[in-house]
């Protein structure tokens, strides 16, 4: 199923990527090329085949319910977490005004 430029713009909007008309035009051809090529997967008989969920069988572990069990990923790391934020304010992430 070929996609058109309107679809390209829709996908870009879902992906939160601003694109120009020229980029949308270029991407239309590229995406159709790639999607046309992956269509061949439709030939494969997958009757009764389960989609893969884990490539190596592995149990999902639960850690002990302990606060700050790991010093690296536990709490009290505000300054570290904000260190790379582009616009931190008053100990929070700063964003443009969302509510008028």
């Amino acid at each position, binding site marked *: 199923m070929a*996609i058109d430029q309107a*679809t*390209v713009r829709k*996908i*870009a*909007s*879902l*992906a*939160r*990527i*601003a*694109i120009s008309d020229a980029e949308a035009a270029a*991407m239309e051809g*590229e*995406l159709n*090329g*790639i*999607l046309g*090529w*992956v269509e*061949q*997967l*439709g030939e*494969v008989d*997958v009757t009764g*085949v*389960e*989609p*893969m*969920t*884990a*490539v*190596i069988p*592995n149990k*999902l*572990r639960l*850690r002990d319910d302990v606060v700050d069990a*790991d010093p*690296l*990923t536990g709490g009290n*790391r505000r300054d*570290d*977490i904000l*260190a*790379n*934020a*582009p*616009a931190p304010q008053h100990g929070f*992430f700063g*964003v*443009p*005004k*969302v509510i008028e």
Partner: protein
Amino acid sequence: MTELTNLTVAQIRDGHRAGDFSAVEVAEAFNANVAGAKALNAFIVETPEHAIAAAKAADADRSAGTLKPLSGVPIGMKDLFCTNGVQTTAASHMLEGFVPRYESTVSQKLWDAGAGMLGKLNLDQFAMGSSNETSYFGNVISPWRRKDGGNAALAPGGSSGGSSSAIAARLCPAATGTDTGGSIRQPAAFTGISGIKPTYGRCSRWGIVAFASSLDQAGPMARDVRDCAIMLENMAGFDPKDATSLDMAVPNWEAALSSDLKGKTVGIPREYRLDGIDPDIDAMWDAGIAMLKDAGAEVVEISLPHTKYALPAYYIIAPAEASSNLARYDGVRYGLRDLPQGAGLQDMYAATRADGFGPEVKRRIMIGTYVLSAGFYDAYYTQAQKVRTLIARDFEQAFASCDVILAPTAPSAAFGLGEKTSDPLAMYLNDVFAVPASLAGLPAMSVPAALNREGLPLGLQIIGKAFDEQGVLNAGLAIEERAGFTARADKWW
């Protein structure tokens, strides 16, 4: 004495231990090679002070009798691993200037083992690419050139192209790589070095910039099989911070290396014989089969019937996971922010992501977003995951009659920079032999096996059963001993 930068990891470790040279001498020698190789553009950040500090500690540990497994060995770190206090970019504009406040598990293990860091190695942006031409920080150039009198710049492979170029040019004895669909093996093959992607889950993904989480796996790149074994021992291991980390002991791969393959069976997948493939690749493959027979192995033909569907399945699954993983780059918490005058939050997201991602990354996010979108999810994503089950099953059935599989690593030798950039599909096809093992989570390595008619290296790939890195390394060693690959690029940089 041999030039220090020509020594392997094992030779540096053992020579340092024996007192033949100091670790500081080794670090200085490699720092000088790194500083003198700007033309290769293999490093995004150089960290000579880190290498020297680790070397001083190694020399002190030698005096104190407290040597560690990698004491005295300086290495390169792919710039996909977060390093505390050292810029980590994934070769993207999005993360330019990002300085992690924590260390990835794999790099921490290497430093704990005594290794030093020469710098952060260039790569394809967010590890998406097969030629290192998508980096925001410029192309990496391979030290190799064709023996045709020309001096065309060749691709070092990708995505771990800084790692492969640096090792081949003797800028570091070993480096980390990551492999999502061939990103360790293909660059290793292109530059005449070795590299192993272990079983999915062997190396922790914690602190590695995520691309496609069900496929991403770290592994070592080095000049020979022994060095890969040494490095992997010091990278692998259970990590509670990675939900898919394997809770298994790390074997002593180096100690158990053996190139005696008596009693082993090697499978040759008939579907990997592609029509119209480079005759040099086929000749190398046949020579590899003879080498493994000579090492005592029995050789059988096997079938992996869904091979041709691996690449299209990969180019649904990997972009789908990437579109989800890369949603985190929003201009709020870290990385680039592009806030046009008067823009609201949604416009800021879109502007930041338009500015921060390169064309290939955008292409993959777009593909991933599309195949996961309402109405198309089952036709694309679920179908691809079912095909992935069939590909894994192919390997399971093949391994009922063999211990390891031998195939070429890539369908060609290194190509020239710019030769494939205009056609994304042609670039993707370069990973045709590498992707199936990635989809099945299996250990696989590339070892240099021959030079083609242009004087460029070609690699053979060994694919093993899950958790059998030893079998892969041993078959690799058997090839290494017989191929006698000693060629190296003439220095022009």
